[in-house]
Every structure is written in C-alpha cells, then in structure tokens.
C-alpha cells in the first residue's frame, strides 16, 4: 500500500500507473513505436527494462497492425495498452479502432471482449502544424462501444489510466501533448472512476464544463471573472460523460458554458449543451476552436486556440 503523495509530471504519473498495473497483472502489456526507449514523451520510461521486451513490445511503424494486433490480443486474454503517439497517427488505424475494437463484443454476441487502452494524445503541440495537432475526441464519442477519457491533471492521468486498464472495455485514452510536463501532487494508487466529473470550483451563477488542457485555460478565466460566481467542472471522461454532475450544477446555476480546444462545429460541447438545453430549458453557450486546420506559424496557430478572453466573453454574455 502506497502512502503519501509524490510530485509527478502528467506523463510520469501515467507511467507510474502503467508500471503498477503491469506489476499487478501479468495480462497487461504495452505495445507501440519507440516504447522500448521510454516513448517519445517519456511516458513508458523504464518499463521495458523492468518488464522485458515481451511485455513492453517495440513495434514497426505499422499503426493498423499495432491496433489490429492489440484487438487480437485483447480477444484472447491479454490487456494491451496501445501507443499511437498522436491521435493524428491513429487515423491510420481507424478501421481497427472503429470497425474491430469497438464492435467485436457486440457483433459476436458477447463471446469475446476487447479490454484495451489505446493512447491517442490530442491537442495543439506548439509548432507541430496540421497533422500533429488535432483534438478528435468527439469522433470516438460518436462510436458505440468505445469509452473516451481526457485527463487534465497528473493525478487524473495516474488514476484514470489505471481505471481504463481495469475497465474491460476498449478505451480511447486521450492525453494532451502540451500537458506532458505539467507537474502536480499525485497520490499513487488513488482510485478515480471512469465517467465521473470533478467540480474544481463551486459557484452559483454559471456552470463551466471543460476537459483536458482547457481546464488550465478555464481556471485562469474563472480567476479573472469579476462579479460572477462560476462553477467549474472538469468532465474528465467524454464517454460516458457525467450527466448527473453537469445537470445538477446547471439546474442550480441556470446557465451553461462548455469550452473545448477541439473545433466547435460538431464538437462534444454540442452534445452537452443540447442535453442540458433539452433537460433544463436553460441558456447554453459553446466555446471551441475555429473550424480551421492548425497552422505552423505562430499567428496562424494562435487563431486555432481558444483563449481566456473567449471563455470570459461566454461566461459574462448571458
């Protein structure tokens, strides 16, 4: 039993969770490009040395087979953690994710299950341009069979990765590339359930729902919001999303803002806003990225980001 806290990075916290899961359960394996070297973000550091190449499996650059093989492993008794480096590269494995991993249990009448965790980091990663910067969580939320998780803090990345490995479902696990070095206190082994949001700040005038890196932007906006009491919720899991917590908060504040870095058009914020509007009949607002590819040059990249001012405008403009 671990006691006490450690100060860990977002990436290090996830690495510790995987380390613990692999130590506790021989069925857990990790596979993907460069994992033996510790992963390009250090999120697998030391694991191959500790658990060997048979359980921390280096792969060729073969995204469709990495994912397809993980489905095969999962159907036959392993619990693979699949490294896709960035969500943009996982697009090379969409058939394996959407048609195979997500559907196998249902299509085969429950004869098999696909307990895998696919790590598909999202988000703008400064200077990385259009093919390394997308936030596609809504795509996966749309697919029945998939769980979608978007941790925003080191503790959440530790506890939610552990929960994802435990879950037994195919989990699309979406870390944010600009959070890898974010540090925070982590209680090793602390349990957080999938599908459970966290109220980061209680408030009475407006409910602000967000996730992933945008939690940091939202915290800044809340700090700067004058004469308005904001209830800030980190959704943490996109599917299943925590309707109970969001609806209870919105029923109290009677106003809802959803903010995410992903493109606003057809983003997951639309689902939350529509649900709240249907259930409670209260005014809702969405803040999201412009529907533009992420440009390389800084002035273009900045246009693709949502900022504190944008969130503040939405909070104060009911």
């Amino acid at each position, binding site marked *: 039993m671990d006691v006490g806290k450690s100060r860990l990075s977002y990436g290090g916290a996830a690495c510790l969770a995987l380390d613990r899961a692999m130590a506790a359960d021989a069925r857990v394996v990790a596979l993907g490009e460069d994992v033996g070297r510790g992963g390009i973000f250090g999120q697998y550091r030391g694991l191959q040395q500790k658990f060997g190449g048979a359980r921390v499996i280096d792969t060729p650059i073969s995204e469709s087979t990495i994912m397809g093989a993980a489905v095969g492993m999962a159907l036959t008794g392993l619990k693979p953690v699949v490294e896709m480096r960035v969500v943009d590269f996982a697009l090379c494995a969409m058939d394996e994710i959407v048609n195979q991993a997500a559907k196998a249990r249902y299509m085969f009448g429950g004869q098999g299950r696909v307990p895998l965790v696919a790590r598909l980091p999202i988000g703008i990663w400064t200077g990385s341009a259009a093919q390394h910067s997308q936030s596609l969580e809504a795509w996966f939320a749309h697919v029945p069979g998939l769980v979608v998780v978007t941790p925003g803090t080191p503790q959440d990345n530790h506890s939610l990765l552990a929960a994802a490995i435990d879950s037994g479902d195919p989990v699309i696990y979406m870390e944010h590339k600009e959070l890898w070095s974010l540090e925070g206190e982590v209680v090793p082994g602390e349990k957080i359930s999938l599908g459970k949001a966290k109220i980061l700040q209680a408030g009475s005038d407006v409910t602000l729902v967000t996730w992933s890196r945008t939690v940091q932007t939202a915290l800044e906006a809340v700090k700067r919001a004058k004469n308005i009491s904001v209830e800030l919720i980190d959704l943490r899991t996109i599917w299943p999303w925590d309707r109970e917590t969001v609806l209870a908060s919105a029923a109290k504040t009677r106003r809802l803002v959803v903010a995410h870095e992903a493109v606003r058009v057809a983003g997951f914020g639309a689902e939350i806003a529509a649900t709240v509007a249907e259930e409670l009949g209260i005014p809702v607002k969405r803040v999201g990225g412009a*529907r533009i590819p992420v440009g390389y040059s800084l*002035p273009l990249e900045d246009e693709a980001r949502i900022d504190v001012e944008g969130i503040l405008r939405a909070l104060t403009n009911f």
Partner: protein
Amino acid sequence: MKSQDRALALYRTMARIRAFENAAEEASRGGVSAFGAALSNDVRVRGPLHLSTGQEAVPAGVCINLANEDLITSTHRGHGHTLAKGASMEKMMCELFGRATGFNGGKGGSMHIADFSVGMLGANGVVAAGIPIAVGAAHALKVQAKKSIVACFFGDGAINRGPFLEGLNWAKVHELPVLFVCEDNRWSATTSTEAMTAGAGPLARAKAIGIAGAEVDGNDVLAVDLAASKLINEIRKGKGPKFLHAITYRFKGHVSVDPATYRDGEEVARALANDPIKVFVRNCGLKKEELEKIQKQTHEEVANALRVAAAAPWPDKGGAYTDIQDAGSGQWT
C-alpha cells in the same frame, strides 16, 4: 552534361543541403552563429525539425536525373529532396521561420514543405503517406499521356506500413512511371529499423511484386546518380515502376532536439567517418578551388536566406481562414 560539371552539380546540391540543415538546426535552438545571425526566440524555427544531415547524396543523386516537369513526393525529413528538386532555399527558410513569404505562407513549416512550381508535391507528417500519393500522381501522368515521371522518397520505417505494399502493387499493376526511393537511414524514429523488419529488405519486397531495382551505397553520390539514372531511363522508356534502395545514415536524432543517445557510439562514429560529402571530396578528383568556390557561394546563400527569413513579414492572422475549402468558406464557428 560533362562529367565534371555533373560532379560539381552533385557537390553543390549536397553542400547546399548540408548548409541548410546546419542553419535550420541552429535556428531551432535560437541562434545561427555560424552564419552570423543572432536570432531571438520569437523568430526561431519552432516545433519538430527532422534533419536530413548525412543523407544528402540520396536526393542529390536521384534528382539530378529529374526535369522540372518530373514530380516528387517526400517525407517528414524533406528539406534535402526539396532543395535537390530545385526549390528556393530562401523560400524554404522563410517557411521554417513561419513567414508569409515561405512556400506555404507559414501554414506548413518544415514537416509540410511543398513547392508545386518545381514538382515537389509535399513533405508529409505521416510515415508512408507519400507513397500512394506518388502512385496517384504517376497514374495521372499515364492518363494524361505525359512523359514525366515521379520519384517517391520514403524512409526505411515506411516499408512496414500497409501503404508501401498497396502502393507498389498498384504501380506495378498499372505499370506506372514511378521510381520508389527507399532512403534507408537505419532508424525508425528512435528504434532500429533492422530490429523491427523481417525478411531480406526493401528491394526483396519490391522484387516480390515484380518491381526490379537496385541497392546502392546511399553515401556515394556518384553511385546513387548512376543507379538512379539507369532506373529512370527504363521508366522513361515505359517499362513501369522501379525501385532504388539507398543505404545511408541519419547523423542527427529523430528531431533536432533528440540527442539520439539510444544509438551505439561506434555505429555513429563509423557513420560520421563515412560522411557523403567528405567521401565525395576525397574521391572526386575535382580541383580544391572549385569546391571552395561552391562552399563560399553556399555559405552566402544560406546567410542570405537567414537574413531574408528573419526580416520577412509574418502571415496575417486572417490567413488562418483561407485555402481551407470553397463550400462553407467563411463559416468558422
């Protein structure tokens, strides 16, 4: 071209690529002292920078056999291909600096460099993604009854992705005018390709599909030129796709900030001793003054590119909303 002129041209291309890569590498760290430019953080090359230092002989030796109308596709490590195909160094530096005057107006950066005016159809952020695009371009040339060909550059890591097999098969089925160039630098990002690749290698895979080709020392620019020239002549005669496996070495890490400590020191030392530019200088028999003249011109060209890029205007933020699509244009939220 007389053989001496050709040798000088090959040297010039390699020297230009090397100088560009060195300058870009320094600029990604915030300064370019070797070229007399002190850059502040806000003008430096940002994001992942994949350098082709040490691999210059491959694009130089292949592209000297191409005309402006011929086409190429490239990879995330594409500066060398771009320069060798005849693109402007100045405009590429502007693109790396994120300036409006770059090839892509600052939208692409290093990983998405493209210059359609010289037939350079784009670098690519996704491994092997250029292969089907090259095949499609070659198919279009066939449909349009054009005489040009396509050279498709990809790395050793790409041969383990599905599009490699699918693209080669397609090209052979339709006997398309494309030269597949596997620029084998031995490393798939930070993992040894050899450890991840079964069988007798890229050329054997091509041959299994019926595509003939050659394996060549990719650090010997004259050998690359000769091999590419033979294969391209065959392609131009309508004999379908060919394959060139050029074995070279990546001097730098996967990206400029990667110290590549996962590599064996002896392996790296051996590779550095086999520097394609040094090998050429040693064996070419050209006059020292001729080579020094090219060095000097290259140095000036890079210094000028840095000056121009650092002074070039930033893109207007309105540019973020252009060239996306026609239908629905202007509806951004």
